[in-house]
């Protein structure tokens, strides 16, 4: 093919191949995702809308649950893209070029899925438009509506603008698809058009940053503006934004690893990209720990009885497994991102036993975690069951030791595969952040200020089906998008190359001139 049309360069060939060819794997995946989504639609329409919210596990006083968790989680994921790609654009990070499209696409699709969960959660979705008929601007929910709609429009524009030249390219390559012609808006790559487009992209990237920050801030305000114990917190704004960017980068890394493998983007998504994004992920991980620590320490020293009920509910009560599961995920992320960089070397005589011990240790850690969760007991009761009193120090540092042991057991593998290690870390971040959102929403509601009875919350199959709908829906939209539009921004990557070349030329000219100057 390349011989017949020599004008097609390898970048274009790689970027356009997923659009021009469809494998059976794609159809299989699309089918599975559509089936999952349809199952969710069935749960929503034929169960929840027919019978009311009684089909969920919600009750009094746990009025919010998995739906709101998903809402916060997916709006968080949406910070992947736009914010990261905008910041990298504004700061002129050249390496960003191949990843911006994916990042921006994730934003748009997470924003399509996230806010739907609020509608799932509504008792009367048929009256949704009352929000526009009788708006109360004192309500943080209305701030959400405003910020998220602006962000949605903004991020669609932000995705679309840099894509126009690529759509024009597709229009030229595949003239039989008329919608490319419409979407290309008559792009001819004239200097004037280019100038305008570049200007628009710069304006958008600057404007989108405060919008993105505002979005997850007001999502946190929904909780922080009530006087609920452990919701009414001043750090919730930045805490949520940090968590959002954190989970967003993780989602982006997961998409990058998968697309790199499936669409053969190896040449363009280099280990360098994973290394740099990995450092960004590590930074957010540290910030996340910092905020979590501040939040819990402040609560603990306040010793307010209402807050302590929630606090102990998370630390050692009904939600301890979710809470410590979250901490486990984040610790594992931390070590996965740091340990492979440390110059740790197994001493030569220990290398052979380590080769045997490592897989055993990995299995042991996973088994220990499963055992603990199956027992549903604290470390202390587990130790009592085993009639093996753990020293208190060890007992308390188990959670810190287990992730280290887990990462150490995989260390040689992670060290040789920075891409795999960022993938592992990202999976843990996504799980951990979902747990974090759940642990923020539910334990507070289970322990209201004025309680009349023991509260509990067990999500029903309808809620899990709609959660599956969310994940399947988002992946499906992303996959379909990648089959219609190039996931590598061809135009921007070429511009990058040109800029690089011209910088090189200028430098050479300067050098030449300098050498011409008589001594």
């Amino acid at each position, binding site marked *: 093919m390349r011989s017949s049309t020599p004008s097609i360069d390898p970048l274009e060939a790689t970027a356009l191949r997923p659009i021009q060819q469809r494998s059976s794997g794609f159809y299989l995946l699309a089918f599975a995702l559509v089936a999952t989504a349809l199952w969710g639609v069935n749960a929503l329409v034929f169960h929840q809308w027919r019978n009311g919210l009684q089909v969920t596990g919600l009750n009094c006083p746990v009025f919010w649950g998995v739906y709101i968790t998903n809402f916060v989680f997916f709006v968080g994921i949406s910070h992947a893209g736009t914010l990261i790609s905008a910041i990298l654009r504004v700061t002129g990070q050249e390496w960003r070029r191949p990843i911006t499209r994916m990042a921006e696409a994730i934003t748009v699709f997470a924003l399509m899925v996230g806010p739907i969960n609020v509608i799932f959660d509504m008792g009367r979705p048929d009256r949704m438009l009352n929000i526009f008929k009788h708006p109360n601007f004192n309500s943080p929910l209305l701030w959400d*509506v405003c910020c998220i709609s602006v962000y949605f429009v903004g991020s669609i524009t932000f995705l679309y603008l840099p894509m126009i030249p690529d759509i024009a390219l597709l229009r030229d390559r595949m003239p039989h698809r008329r919608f490319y012609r419409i979407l290309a808006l008559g792009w001819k790559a004239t200097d004037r058009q280019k100038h305008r487009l570049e200007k628009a992209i710069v304006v958008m990237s600057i404007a989108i940053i405060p919008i993105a920050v505002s979005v997850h801030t007001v999502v946190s305000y929904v909780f922080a503006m009530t006087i609920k114990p452990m919701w009414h917190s001043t750090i919730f704004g930045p805490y949520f934004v940090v968590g959002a960017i954190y989970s967003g980068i993780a989602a982006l890394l997961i998409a990058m690893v998968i697309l790199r493998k499936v669409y053969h983007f190896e040449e363009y998504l280099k280990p360098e990209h994973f290394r740099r994004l990995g450092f960004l992920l590590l930074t957010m991980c540290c910030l996340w720990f910092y905020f979590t620590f501040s939040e819990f320490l402040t609560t603990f020293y306040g010793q307010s009885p209402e807050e302590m009920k929630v606090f102990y509910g998370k630390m050692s009560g009904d939600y301890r497994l979710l809470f410590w599961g979250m901490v486990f995920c984040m610790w594992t992320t931390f070590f996965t991102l740091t340990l492979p960089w440390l110059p740790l070397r197994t001493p030569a005589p220990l290398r052979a036993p380590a080769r045997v011990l490592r897989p055993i240790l990995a299995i042991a850690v996973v088994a220990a975690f499963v055992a603990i969760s199956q027992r549903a007991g604290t470390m202390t009761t587990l130790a009592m069951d085993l009639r093996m009193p753990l020293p208190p120090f060890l007992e308390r540092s188990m959670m810190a030791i287990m992730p280290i042991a887990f990462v150490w057991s995989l260390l040689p593998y992670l060290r040789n595969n920075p891409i795999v290690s960022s993938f592992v870390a990202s999976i843990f971040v996504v799980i951990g952040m979902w747990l974090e959102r759940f642990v923020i929403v539910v334990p507070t509601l289970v322990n209201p200020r004025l309680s009349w009875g023991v509260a509990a919350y067990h999500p029903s199959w309808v809620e899990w089906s709609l959660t599956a709908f969310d994940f399947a829906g988002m992946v499906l939209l992303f996959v379909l998008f990648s089959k219609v539009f190039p996931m590598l921004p061809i135009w921007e990557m070429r511009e990058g190359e040109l800029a690089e070349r011209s910088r090189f030329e200028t430098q050479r000219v300067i050098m030449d001139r300098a050498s011409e100057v008589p001594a």
Partner: protein
Amino acid sequence: MPRWGMVIDLDKCTGCQACTVACQTENNLRPGSVEESQRGRIIEWIHVLPVVEGEYPHVKTRYMPVPCQHCDNPPCTRVCPVRATYKNDEGIVAQIYPRCIGCRYCVNACPYTCKFFNWSQPDWPESTHGGKSLSAAHNPDVSVRPVGVTEKCSFCSHRLIKAREQAKSEERPLRSEGDFVPACVEACPAEAMCFGDLDSPGTAVSELSRSHRAFRLQEELGAEPKVYYLTEG
């Protein structure tokens, strides 16, 4: 403008729950099933809250009837995205059922857990005699709430409308005490509850609410509830 409020004397309250039953019939509350009760979905606009104090062996249980506190600074009205809950000029915190979108934000914002959600379509069982559905016994003055909306105690505000009409027909002003009485206050056999205008001098509520025994629930939150309790002992 009157400022309606309630005083509940815990010394007199026997925890008999007559207020709960009176409210149930007056306001067409859905009859709850065992399953709903087990899942924590019973709706009681005034519920008798058992308060266990102290630790074994010095344990004491008290009973506290808790209706909507009709806060002067209500945390619930601020957060409603569609203004379906609001405080009227006479201090009654009301809910507009046909406008409510069922987001349950107000319910979460309420520090007293006094708002309720309709998880399902109300089911009115057939009456055992007469063959008529229980819905035939509805109070026509109070609308039946559909599935998916939030509901709450209204201080029987439909009775206020009637009392005002009555006073008008008798060509006299509405009395600040006695004309407008919610069903729970009327039903209390121990006469532990009284109701009236907190601002007009001389009424029992304004006297009692300023007595040294008076306190309000979670006063430190600053919601300024208009339901006062008189301590025991």
